[in-house]
């Protein structure tokens, strides 16, 4: 089977940036590989009395800029290479928003759909026991990811604190608010995307008031993008879609009503005064802002020429293929690349860690203000590189982040 190895892709992306930056061989080589990997085998007692063995991982890709940061995935299709690749991407993401953290990722090969809550709790605690020695607020701070939840973070935190014998909420983020979770995490991904969109419009001299937006994917990020795009930027939502197809009305929808409808019915279909539109058609609408917030690889060489938005803000991971990226760049579609546009989530995770350490919690307004500052600065960092190197925004973001990580390695005297 000609399998696409995600880690090979991640290495190739680094290679391109390293070449452009002219990194020395040692630094380049260092950044091509994870700094530390832990593979553990977890026996877990299941409800029916049997013991099941799970394989699990934690990868700390690079900690030159600070403790590793990255989610824990519970997925039946998990492999070490997926985790390595995701840990590398976390390294670039924390660097691009310039938070003092490195990159990491963890995972358990399991199917949470086959497990009861009690079994999940036992697995969560077993995993934490196995990897606890490598964690800590100044070593590595995990967070929720695919199929892991605030509840699972709470169990892991509790297990860790039991082991070390004192409170240590900052060992993990994405916890429920009563256990030290941060305000503002729910909409942080979309909010970060909206902030960078605002800045992009400024440099393009675009007034976004009453301009149009379309959102592909109406899960958590998509819904908040609809609400915040309207609230913060004054954008008019004219189309939205989910896996069952989309809705369209050139006059615009009230985003609040669309979100309510989706929450109530589980679907967008049948929303009043809307025409049906396919996911493919939605991407090609003549809108000012397009938010791809659903799947990977939706903008490809096949349709990139027909993408007509001014700004494409990638809330989803990997919505644009490399071939399409180049076409969009040539066509002057301004792309806010995923690991910049959706970095709001990790930024608020970082805020959670900070608040845990201080044991002092910020009001929502303060979280929003600090997130705005971080995202705005990150945008200009990337944009400056974009102008200077005359590359597309994704390449610029890579250049910024790889340079920052390389610099930290150099300063530490590692290379």
């Amino acid at each position, binding site marked *: 089977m000609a399998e696409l190895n995600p880690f090979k892709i991640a290495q190739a992306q680094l290679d391109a940036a390293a070449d452009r930056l002219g990194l020395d061989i040692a630094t380049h080589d260092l950044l091509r590989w994870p700094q530390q990997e832990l593979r553990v085998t977890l026996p877990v007692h299941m409800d029916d009395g049997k013991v099941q063995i799970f394989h699990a991982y934690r990868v700390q890709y690079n900690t030159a800029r600070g403790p590793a940061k990255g989610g824990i995935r519970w997925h039946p299709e998990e492999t070490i290479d997926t985790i390595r690749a995701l840990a590398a991407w976390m390294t670039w993401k924390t660097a691009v928003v310039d938070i003092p953290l490195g990159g990491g990722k963890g995972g358990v090969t399991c199917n949470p*759909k086959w497990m009861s*809550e009690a079994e999940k709790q036992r697995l969560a605690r077993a995993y934490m026991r196995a990897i606890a020695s490598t964690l800590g607020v100044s070593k590595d701070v995990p967070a929720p990811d695919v199929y892991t939840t605030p509840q699972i973070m709470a169990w892991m935190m509790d297990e860790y604190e039991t082991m070390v014998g004192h409170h240590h909420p900052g060992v993990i983020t994405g916890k429920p608010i009563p256990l030290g979770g941060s305000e503002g995490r729910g909409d942080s991904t979309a909010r970060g995307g909206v902030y960078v969109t605002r800045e992009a419009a400024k440099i393009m001299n675009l007034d976004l008031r009453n301009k149009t937006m379309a959102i592909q994917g109406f899960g958590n990020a998509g819904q908040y993008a609809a609400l915040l795009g309207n609230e913060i930027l004054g954008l008019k939502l004219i189309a939205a879609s989910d896996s069952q197809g989309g809705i369209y009305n050139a006059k615009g929808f009230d985003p609040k009503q669309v979100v309510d409808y989706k*929450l*109530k019915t589980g679907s967008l279909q049948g929303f009043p005064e809307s025409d049906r539109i396919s996911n493919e058609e939605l991407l090609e609408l003549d809108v000012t802002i397009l938010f791809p917030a659903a799947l990977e690889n939706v903008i490809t060489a096949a349709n990139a020429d027909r993408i007509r938005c001014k700004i494409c803000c990638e809330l989803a991971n990997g919505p644009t293929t490399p*071939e399409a990226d180049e076409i969009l760049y040539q066509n002057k579609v301004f792309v806010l690349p995923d690991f910049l546009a959706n970095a709001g989530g990790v930024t608020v995770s970082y805020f959670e860690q900070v608040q845990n350490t201080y044991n002092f919690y910020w009001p929502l307004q303060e979280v929003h203000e600090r997130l705005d500052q971080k995202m705005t600065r990150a945008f200009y960092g990337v944009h400056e590189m974009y102008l200077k190197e005359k590359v597309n925004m994704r390449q610029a973001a890579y250049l910024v982040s790889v340079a920052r990580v390389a610099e930290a390695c150099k300063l530490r005297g590692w290379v």
Partner: protein
Amino acid sequence: MDPSTVPSGIQALDEVLHGIRLGDNVVWQVDGIEDYYYFARPFAETAIAARRRLVYFRFASHPPVLESRPGMEIIELDPSLGFDYFTREVHLLIESRGPEVMYIFDNLSALVVEWATDELLANFFQITCPYLFELNTVAYFALTRGQHAHYAVARIRDTTQILVDVYHAKGQMHIHPIKVWDRYSPQMFLPHLVAGENWLPLSHSREAAEVLVSAHQSPLLDTMRPLAPWESVYQKLLHYRDSTSGFDEKDPEQFALKQELARMLIGHHPVFNRLADRYFTLGDLFAIRNRLIGAGRIGGKAAGMLLAQRILLTEKNETEIDFAERLDDHDSFYVGSDVFFTFLVNNDLFRLRLQLTCDSSTSHEEFQEIEQRFLAGRFTPTIQEQFRAMLDYYGQAPIIVRSSSLLEDSFGNSFAGKYRSIFCPNQGNPEARLADFMRAVKLVYASALNPDALCYRSKRGLGTNDEQMAILVQRVSGMPYRHFFFPMLAGVAFSRNLYAWNDRIDIRQGVIRLVLGLGTRAVDRVGSDYPRMIAISHPHLRPEVGAKVSKYSQHQMDLLDLETNRFDTRFPAEVFVDGNYPNLYLFLSVMRDNYPYDPISGKVDGRPDQWVLTFNNLIRRTDFVLLMGKLLSTLEEAYGQPVDVEFTASVDATERVRINLLQCRPLFMPGSLVDVSVPTSLDRQQVLFRAHRMICGGLVEQIRYILYISPQRYYRLTSEAKKSLGRLVGQINRHPTMKGTKILMMGPGRWGSGNIDLGVNVTYADIDNAAVLVEVALEEAGHVPEVSYGTHFFQDLVEGQIIYLPVYPDDPSTEFQREFFETTPNALLEFLPHTSEYASVLRLIDVPKTTEGAFVQVAADPQRRQAVCFLDKVVRKRH
């Protein structure tokens, strides 16, 4: 001789009656069958001599009226197959024999022994007689005198052309014409002595009085010696019950009588009979009869419900669950199946029903007209009076009028959704409530003529079976809340879990589909709304995680709106505006940050738009699942086969659960037939593949298209091409040609996976038109890809009634015909002309076009975990 008259074979009789005419139906009311022979045999002789066509309907146990001989036709019929069957057969035979035929029927009283009630006898006559009249035939019937209810004889008299009483007085035979239509003489309606060549009328008052007094015991009262078991069996059992020794089931005669009463009320199915004999007491049967409106049977649904209730109350189980404390009593009424036929007969609808078959392709508009004709029909005053009494009993409590047909819910057949159930919120004054109720009954009756139901009957080979429509009237369980009325919980549960989405789930422990509010949302499938599926072996598992929990949950609830007096569907947030409905914390979770939090106290916090119906606390904090599990296993054991039930449930302030059992029947999974047996006698050439792993069951016939994605070629595609392939699947799925036809989709690995290397990248919307989805796990380079068991859209497959099968072609027992799938001509470019670069990997096979007209059929037997996909006929050369 007048060409319209037909000789009776007895000249004296012809003189008395002024001749029998074509079109006459002649009923002889006799004391013994010999008296009928006396008149029928000469009539037959004369007809044969005159070379008239003569048909003898033989159905009774008495010695034959006529022996077989040239010049006549004997047709044997079995009345034990039921009124409906018998009447339909007679009707069809008469129709096929055409006009001016001479008919002799056996003694009609024999029918009552089989059909239990005089009502059906009168119905038979009232349907058959006018048709014979139209066809200008002459038909002889006999009726045993003094053994039928007065009203039944009266209906026969009103319908027939000639009714003659025959009796013996003072050692001599007499005839007494009671009715001779359109003929008259001053002495015609006097008794006549049957003697000599001229039968003299008894015109002298003294003679007449002597004869008549000795012949009639009580001319104005109902029968003294009822033949109809309906009445006689009941009377005898009453007698035993009220005797000093009381009813004794050990006495064979008394037990036999009880059995007979049970058969009359419930029917003749052996399993129902066994259960009824074991579990029903005489008191139970009397209680049914006391709540029966009209006469006849109560139907499968009512019988199943009552039996299940009784089984649970009788059987003790080791877990110390006392069902007596956990089951709600119920106080249902039953409208007997005879009422249905009488309604049809009295309102001239029976013939219409005979004309409608599956092939008559009734359109929606035509069916609406049929409904209008039913709505215009009237019930007899007696029945209306009983309806009134029942409604007075219920007061203004909401009720549901449910079809309870004899075929429905019986073993191996389910008309789920074919026949109607109608809610009556039952608000308003008594007259309005009666009108609403009767309207509901008529609409349920009309649904027996629904094209879907007729088609289903025909397809299942039930077209000629006796179909008597009884009605079950149940109190709607629940309580008023604001101006709504609904049960706290409702759903359906199956004693076998045929929708196990992973290997851990024990299919022998069953599954529950649970909703808040009326159970209609659990029984029916409503698009993007999903009941909570609870696997009894692993109640905490669900096929979704995180935000998907919200998507795959119940979003709306069905209820009765007492203000508008109708059934309605609302969002929970609209209904529970003040959040003070009891026990909400057991049903709701609160979505925060894409995760459902279960309330930790009795209060549900969060905004209504964050509520999601998970029933997590119900599962965790109460013994609901344990209770349902025990209920199902107890019923399965008693039935001797898997069952499914419909129920409502409530939880009191101490978190104690009570169940109201609404229905129990042999297991039928929505969308599948449990009695699907995988054909064993298939020609090897017919088989396309077999599957042995976990599957959900069903039978899909007439599959025209196969969409096949070649696993080997798929894995060689670039990721971009793989991505595009998923979109092409969607385009074929939505192609106008695919509407109204069936397509089987098959391809490698985990369909719906976000990782395109693991399987075809589709969403549910790309496959929702498929009848069958097949995941092919073909070993490639030593690696067998996993299949998903449909988990990427498991609930969608369940709700969409799509059969899911994983297939392992490398396993020899799979008999996977790779060559068929890989080399049969590809119709892809006819559908999507610009996709030639995908034609080697994506194949669309128009099966009948390439197989001399064969279609594909899939039979999947979940019990035995066997499925086969095959061509429905042997094809010598496939393409």
